[in-house]
């Protein structure tokens, strides 16, 4: 399936959960990342149960440092 991850299109295996995507994409500091799925922030408890679908838009966000590109 095709996902848009941080604004870039990417083809990944079907039926992946958000937790699995974090591992597959080797997301830095996974304990601290916030995940936005189609404009909505997911609760951390939803990472394991949320299965991604074709054309989903996923953003990995951090607001822990200077972060967010808004300094």
């Amino acid at each position, binding site marked *: 399936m095709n996902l848009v991850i941080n604004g870039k299109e990417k083809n990944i295996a079907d039926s992946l959960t958000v937790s699995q995507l974090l591992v597959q994409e080797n997301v830095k500091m996974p304990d601290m990342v916030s995940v936005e799925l189609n*404009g909505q922030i997911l*609760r951390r408890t939803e990472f394991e149960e949320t299965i991604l679908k074709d054309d989903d838009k996923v953003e990995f966000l951090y607001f822990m440092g*200077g*972060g*967010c590109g808004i*300094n």
Partner: protein
Amino acid sequence: MKADTLAVHGGFGGDNETGATAVPISQTVSYAYKTAQELADVFDGKSPGYIYTRIANPTTAALEVRLTQLEDGIGCIATSSGMAAIASVAMSLARAGDEIIAATGIFGGTVSLFENTLGRFNVKTTLVDVVDTNNFANAINNKTKLIFIETIGNPRMDVPDIPAIAEIAHQANVPLVVDNTVTTPFLIKPVEFGADIVVHSTSKFINGHGTAIGGAIIDTGNYDWRKGTFEDIKKLSESVGQLAFLAHLRNLIYRDLGGCAAPMNSFLMLQGLETLSGRMVKHCENAEKLARLLQSHPKVSWVNYPGLTESKFSNRVTKLFDGRGGGLLTFGLGNKQRAFRFIDSLKLAKNLANLGDAKTLVIHPASTIFHEFSPDEQKSMGVSDDMIRVSVGIEDFEDIRADFKQAIERAFKETK
């Protein structure tokens, strides 16, 4: 995972290198990077990482994740105190010329922050009684930037109709800020009743042992900052979506005010959270027993505990807190002299300015935490001269009962 499990494991899965099961205390000011480009990327938001503990810290981050999970929010910022949390929220949302609506009977320090400190910056606060929810609708206008309530007003013990107030706030596109300090997520998750922002003084029940000062701000995700009236936050939402409010705090207000949590204190809050659920059960049980004891005591003038079925807030306590009235109560002995003698006669309970400790605590609010307010102001805030506030601890109730009974007797004997 369920809440009891999240309280123990949330935000930290163990240290992969050492096997440590407790969250390590990152007692450091800053974080070194091997290359200039790496640090530049973190500053620029292109790469995640810590910069400086005033902005973020790994121990504090673990606390923030755990609190986010327990409050079922989308993110959290831990602060140096509950007052720092409230000040950061208010200064993020309100500018000069804007207005705040707050409940009467909330913590005196919060009233002072709104009226005195923020008043100096031309932010006006209107205090309204929570008994009649219509008071909020009547007070709201196009300058209102936030509504602030406590889950149980301290020390009036008022319980607001949170979902009804949330509806009023949202009709006006105003965020509702709920202080969940005295109830904690184990009695209520305000997110489920429409709260947009939850604040805590973590120094109280969350810490639970009177060992550290701290606070927290949780965005519940209920308020859509993309459609809000806060232009700077709205602009941020174009890049970070729903996290715009927290980003506005982290990268501007909270960063600039400097009210960061100390790593050691964050560790103590994490430890406190692990036992919070069990402690809250005992706090509520003991408080209800003490309220009933005082209610039936012939020398006690009045008792105010929202967990009593006779309380005018009983229905709200059932709806919001599943019938549990919390660990705080107030009562009166008729006059200030008796109140003082009662406090002086206590052997177990401690006379001090705090609440939420495992130990039973008392205070005479009128002469201490509300001393800066005039008698008329105290009256409107529900503080009377004979009032004693009790934060009921988790000791064996028989020892609390014996201490209160003997102190009440002494309070009256010495009047003769």
